[in-house]
């Protein structure tokens, strides 16, 4: 019987070893500090002047030396406990905890806008987090389930956003017509990208998808006549709710009835915020329900199987081409939907919103969430998008905290926040119920 080997504890290190290690870290810090801290550009009336700040480099090196030494001393004494605890973490959860936590999260998300602290800023951060949750769940189909490393996912997000912006601006199509169109266009481009990369795996696939993401961005940037280039598209109309408009009545005459008028309440921008919050909640929940459903169907199960063993899949009659294409297409269509929503919410889009860093963030959410865990993705999105956005006024420190959080997670939960894979069918729910055998006396091992 084979078991996954336990994570190796770092070898118990001697003090001299720790000092040498800290010295090395200090050296790296000093080298990094030369360009980062060593110079300062002063702008004055006489023009630019360069100030050399050599002591800063020493301070940085000293701080890193002390910090690294303290950290490794602490780790040396604490590591066994930490390891013990983090090992128990995943195992302690009974299998239906995920379901309970899921319902609690959904309930929380539903009442969130009504809570006393939910001011416009909070709601806007929550909406942003939900966009990334949806993108994470969508990308999870491609990366987490099908195991295809896609670094250009933002391209489909951009396609969704631009298709809504262009269709509504040029042809006057409403949000509700554009939403499915954006999904279909996303899927179409997913297949378009999928075809040439089907034979590629791992690193090669990552590079090609990365290139695809950039190609789309560069096209949006340079196809001035259609996309208005770097200036982007402004004044994208807001979606309506059954024809009721959320436009501010103070910005000009409304087209059709306003939502506030219809209800006979005074207009408030919060109505719009509530509306888009619930809209993205609905879209995101739709994404995860769809993904969960797919996992139980042959197609979805084939995604997971194909990632595990391609030879076995082929010998069972599975066509890898259609299986991979379906994963690409479905993942991309959810990005298209999210992009459509994004354009509608912002009212303004430009290629700047669809750079590689977005793909990287979404991928980080999926990986940190634990590759395939739906709830893990929610936690990771809150951590990676929600917190930095909320602490935006802390400026550059938030990026340091971001990096620190990533490092800590990878130390304590190298498989991601929630890395357990849930079976798609368990005893008592599938056909296996009737065949649960009497407890066998002998064990074959």
């Amino acid at each position, binding site marked *: 019987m084979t078991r996954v080997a336990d994570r190796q504890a770092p070898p118990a290190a001697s003090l001299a070893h720790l000092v040498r290690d800290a010295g090395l870290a200090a050296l790296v810090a000093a080298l990094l500090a030369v360009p980062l801290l060593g110079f300062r550009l002063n702008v004055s009336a006489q023009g630019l002047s360069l100030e050399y700040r050599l002591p800063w480099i020493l301070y940085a090196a000293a701080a890193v030396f002390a910090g690294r030494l303290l950290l490794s001393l602490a780790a040396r004494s604490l590591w066994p406990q930490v390891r013990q605890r983090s090992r128990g973490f995943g195992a302690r959860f009974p299998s239906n905890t995920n379901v309970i936590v899921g319902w609690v999260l959904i309930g929380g998300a539903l009442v969130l806008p009504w809570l006393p602290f939910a001011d416009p800023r909070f709601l806007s951060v929550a909406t942003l987090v939900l966009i990334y949750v949806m993108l994470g769940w969508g990308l999870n189909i491609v990366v987490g389930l099908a195991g295809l490393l896609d670094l250009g996912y933002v391209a489909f997000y951009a396609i969704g956003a631009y298709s809504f912006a262009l269709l509504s601006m040029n042809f006057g199509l409403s949000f509700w017509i554009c939403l499915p169109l954006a999904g279909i266009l996303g899927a179409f481009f997913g297949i378009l990208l999928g075809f040439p990369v089907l034979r590629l795996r791992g690193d090669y696939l990552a590079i090609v998808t990365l290139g695809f993401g950039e190609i789309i961005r560069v096209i949006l940037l340079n196809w001035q006549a259609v996309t208005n280039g770097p200036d982007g598209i402004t004044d994208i109309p807001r979606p309506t709710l059954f024809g009721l408009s959320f436009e501010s009545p103070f910005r000009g005459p409304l087209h059709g009835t306003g939502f506030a008028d219809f209800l006979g309440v005074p207009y408030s921008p919060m109505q719009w915020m509530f509306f888009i919050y619930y809209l993205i909640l609905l879209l995101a929940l739709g994404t995860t329900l769809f993904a969960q459903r797919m996992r139980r169907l042959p197609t979805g199960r084939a995604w*997971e199987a194909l990632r595990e063993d391609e*030879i076995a899949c082929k010998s069972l009659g599975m066509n890898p081409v259609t299986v991979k294409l379906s994963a690409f297409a479905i993942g991309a269509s959810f990005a298209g939907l999210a992009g459509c929503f994004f354009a509608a919410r912002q009212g303004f889009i430009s290629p700047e919103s669809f750079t590689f860093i977005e793909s990287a963030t979404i991928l980080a959410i999926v990986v940190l969430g634990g590759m395939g865990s739906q709830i893990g993705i929610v936690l990771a999105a809150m951590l990676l998008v929600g917190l930095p956005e909320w602490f935006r006024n802390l400026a550059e420190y938030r990026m340091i905290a971001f990096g620190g959080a990533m490092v800590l997670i990878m130390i304590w939960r190298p498989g991601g926040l929630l890395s357990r894979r849930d079976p798609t069918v368990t005893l008592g729910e599938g056909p296996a119920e009737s065949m649960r055998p009497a407890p066998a006396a002998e064990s074959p091992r």
Partner: protein
Amino acid sequence: MLKVRGLHSGYGRIEALHGVDVDVEAGEIMTVVGANGAGKTTLLMTVCGHPRAWSGEVLFEGRDITGLPMFEIGRLGIAHVPEGRHIFPRMTVLENLQMGGYAVDPRHFDADLQRVLAYFPQLGNRLSQRGGTLSGGEQQMLAIGRALISRPRMLLLDEPSLGLAPLVVRQLFDIIADINRDERMTVFLIEQNAFQALRLAHRACIMVNGRITTRGTGAELLADPAVQAAYLEGAAPSAEEAP
């Protein structure tokens, strides 16, 4: 049922099969035994379309399947249990078995699962266990069980004894004989463990360096002194010693 004619195949520019002819009749257990590296796995994989045959032909139930992609061959009623088992390690036993039914009508699944668990009762205790945590013998049973769920008319087994204790091998081969007898299942068995395979087989042949050198019934080959010397004495078999 399966006819292989003048099959040449290999990897890159290196030829591993130099014109192989094999027939498998319906309902029999046919085995190919041979030393490590003789090309047995290559033969089975080429029959399944991966790698593609360089020349020669493969007929299944009279239909030419040479050059068909592997997944289409998998849908024709040929179930291939590849060397090294290739189960899905992160999926549960039950999910593994369900993947076996990927290309068949799902309504058959319940009955087929019963059928498979009747052959491999050990798997019944482990339906919700991850495939990767099974013992080697159980993994092989799972791989064969998964293949049976795909309702094949012919079972291709590549070294099911690989890495298993002798007792487990005997148990497994008895079950293979049962499957052949009870379901009239045609079995094409590739083995290095010549004694166990020849004991089981109705007909057998010996493969040396990409060629079939000896043919006969299982009993005939078991009794053949040259075969005994080369494959049954525990001594390292050398290709030249086989007639």
